């Protein structure tokens, strides 16, 4: 068995003195894990680091084996990620999410979105956090727990959608939801129309919305808390 693909490193774990187990998201073949042999006397330390884009070859005798990776650096990005705390928290957050995604299931859309997200980090603007929320929103859908914003769950209208039901994950109209406003989750306008700019409060609302469903549908089933890097991003918006 052999496959060649472009991939982004999600995480690495030390296996022994001379090898690591690396998890990557590939462009065409989904998420893969494999063993990478490290030659400490030959350098190449900056290659297999989270966020870096690699030209990858995976090889195993049988498809169900863990297999070995041979890697070559395609685009170095880890050093950029390490320079900014929000960027670092964001990448940590995405990698934690993707660690829960089933392996070897093609997920080209997630790969493209993740790739764009790393390439377009802009620490001066909040646009990047907006894209991060959109990623989480789409990730929920890929995992089978999409939030339905097509129409109001109560009236069937498509206008003035302002809330999301924390139980059903369906949008609720501003008038219809007024009665339950304390229980409903605020729907930031940029999730309905990507062209709309987001302010600080919209971003916090967006993170609360995706955070609620990530916790409810994915993390609580695995007895896990949401990644702490998420809190760091919310705190950065509040300060």
């Amino acid at each position, binding site marked *: 068995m052999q496959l060649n693909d472009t991939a982004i490193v999600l*995480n*690495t*774990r030390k296996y*022994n*003195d*001379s090898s690591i187990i690396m998890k990557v998201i590939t462009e065409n073949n989904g998420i893969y894990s494999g063993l990478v042999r490290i030659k400490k006397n*030959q*350098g*190449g*330390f*900056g*290659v297999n*680091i*989270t*966020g*870096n884009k690699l030209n990858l070859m995976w090889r195993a005798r049988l498809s169900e084996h863990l297999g070995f990776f041979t890697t070559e*650096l395609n*685009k*170095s*990005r*880890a*050093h*950029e*990620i*390490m320079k900014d*705390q929000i960027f*670092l*928290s964001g*990448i*940590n*957050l995405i*990698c*934690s999410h993707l*660690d829960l995604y089933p392996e070897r299931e093609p997920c080209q859309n997630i790969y493209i979105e993740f790739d764009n997200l790393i390439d377009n980090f802009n620490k001066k603007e909040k646009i990047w956090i907006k894209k991060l929320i959109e990623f989480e929103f789409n990730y929920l859908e890929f995992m089978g727990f999409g939030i339905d914003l097509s129409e109001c769950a109560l009236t069937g209208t498509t206008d003035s959608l302002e809330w999301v039901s924390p139980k059903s994950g369906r949008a609720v109209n501003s008038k219809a939801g007024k009665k339950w406003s304390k229980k409903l989750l605020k729907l930031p306008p940029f999730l309905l129309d990507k062209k709309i700019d987001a302010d600080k409060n919209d971003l916090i609302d967006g993170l609360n919305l995706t955070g609620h469903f990530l916790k409810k549908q994915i993390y609580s089933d695995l007895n*896990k808390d949401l*990644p*702490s*890097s998420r809190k760091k991003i919310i705190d950065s918006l509040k300060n």
Partner: protein
Amino acid sequence: MSQTEIDNLIELLARLPGIGPRSARRLALSMLKKPDSLMRPLAKSLLSTADSIVKCSICGNLDTSSPCYICLDESRDKSTIIVVEEVADLWALERASVHKGLYHVLGGTLSAIDGISPDDIGISSLVQRALKEETKEVILAMNATIDGQTTAYYITDQLAAAEVKVSRLARGVPVGGELDYMDDGTLLEAIESRQPF
């Protein structure tokens, strides 16, 4: 010694890092050939080390006493603390004799994926040490990995209340390194941190 005991010895040796079953068999055989000159002294040394080694209550280093010999050394500069991930990192810095101050061993890094939180590593004890008046600088010598840098940022946030200078190790071309074999990230860091010559 019966075959079972030899197998047991091989199995235990094979658990050591960098030693596989083949190497373990070779080591065991080498010891069996020299029971008095090698095997008994080694066993004695292993036992006495296991009985006496403790974790330093101040810095987390491994030594025969707590506080360790570094923390007790009066000649060391007590105003500077280098923070490292593991004891092996402390040993590497000591071997190079590049730091005459104190150390703090965290015993790991924060990891969202592995579920390692600040409570699992020695960050709170570091903050307590940094709050002491004698501490002037904390040098973060974490690995240049995502987890290492996440931990470094977290520590920097935690040390905001303490009036200490927080610095990190430089990144760039290693001694003896050839530029042709460097990755783009390291080269960029090296250019950005260039020094007057």
